[in-house]
């Protein structure tokens, strides 16, 4: 897990340029869809890791469950988990990240390309 949480600043943008289409009329539904899908992805990552953890520990003869129940976190571990939880929340809520100025600029982008197909989705 640790490799994902390096302090080095990423160089490659994670988000594409341009507006996101709007598929639902009710305000916020598109963002909720992104949240649900990101949550499901994260949930699966965790479920698979727990599955592996149980198998590996069992093979090593370690009865994990009672030890987990009784474990005391130290300050550094608490801080690390705080950071990871914040990252999870930011990922789940990523569809709300694009700022309004950027969104306005993006809205004009497809038209300026002059594509006959153009943007068919409802504009955010």
């Amino acid at each position, binding site marked *: 897990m640790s490799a*994902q949480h390096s302090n080095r600043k990423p160089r490659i943008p994670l988000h*594409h340029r341009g507006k996101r289409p709007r598929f639902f009329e009710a305000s916020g539904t598109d963002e909720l869809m992104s949240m649900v899908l990101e949550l499901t992805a994260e949930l*699966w*990552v965790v479920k698979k890791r727990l599955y592996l953890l149980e198998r590996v520990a069992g093979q090593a003869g370690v009865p994990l469950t009672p030890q987990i129940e009784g474990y005391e976190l130290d300050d550094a571990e608490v801080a690390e988990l705080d950071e990871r939880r914040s990252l999870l929340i930011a990922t789940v809520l990523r569809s709300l990240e694009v700022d309004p100025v950027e969104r306005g600029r993006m809205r004009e982008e497809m038209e300026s390309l002059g594509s006959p197909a153009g943007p068919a989705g409802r504009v955010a």
Partner: protein
Amino acid sequence: MLKDLSHDLRITPTRDERTRQEFVASLRRHVLSDMASSMRSTFEREVQPGFERAHGRPPRDGEEVHDAMQDERYFRFYSAIRYNAQEMVFRSVIPVVDRNLDELATRVRERPGDAVLDPGLRVPNNVANIDVHLSPGSYHSEYLPDDVAPGAIYDNSIHVFAFNQMGRDIDDIGHTFANFVRLAWPGFRPRAILDAGCTVGHNTLPWAKTFPDAEVTGIDVSAGLVRYAAARARSFGLPVRFMQMDATRLAFPDESFDVVFSSMFLHELPLKDIRAFFREAYRVLKPGGLLLNMELPPNNRMQPYDRFYLDWDSYYNKEPWYKPFRDQDYPQLCAAAGFAPERFVEAVLPRYTYTPEEQFRACIDRGARFGSRTGRLGEEIEWYGFGAWK
């Protein structure tokens, strides 16, 4: 289950990163298989009868199907999930590439492959001005000297995108069309083969494997793709040259190639550039040479629902030239570049690396038959290709 890439430029995700990539691949499989089938049923059972009641006829084309589907709840969920899955493909790959960026550049510098760069080349607007198919940085953005980020992002993301349906090395398209040429015209022995808009050379290398005596060249406008493609080919031990070049302005003499190939390339180009590329292809082909493009099938050969289904990418996936291309008359595109109309060729083929050769050969013999599987990514996809002999 996603395997590691099978060449020396592979980068290793953490266990959690790989799990996330597998989730995204599964999500894509679900939306493109299960949900796509349900959406077709929704159209046939509910939307089409409603349209017929209102208009006294079925929809005529993909646009009418699109208009009729826009307010359907199922279409909205299909689209929202597919769109998010596309974003998540890149989000599952970019952190891994980012972390390995310097080390990858070093690896490529040390074992560079046959790459010819053109620092003066201006990346065309259709690549530079939009993040094509929602890929952050499009095909060309670089973040450090001698960067291979575009290649690494493309190679790793299409691996997730393809959910194991495009070949072990994402090279089934190349194998399918190289072997189509080998089997359909046994007397044709190409000595020089060009792959235009080749990205990282996934579908270039199969030509070198199928025709080992031929000189094979791949071109792309992106330096980051060309560096990566050349090092990747070297890792596979294949002597293929990659050059940074614009397919609308080829730097080759007249009559230099026996085959000019492209795959999944034309639909990224504005029409004027497709026409310019075809004129250039005609110029650089030897008499008796073949232009062959693997592409999405033309709208005028598809049923209205299938036109709508494939054109989704043009409306929602930041591929603005996709539908304008598919709306063209392909034989006419070839003829306008100088190819004789009677020399037009086209094929609808099963995937070569997933199909016994006898069955593949039988599909060549029966000729191009269009259907709902043509060009639609899934376990039963058939690839489409067209072109012309000079």
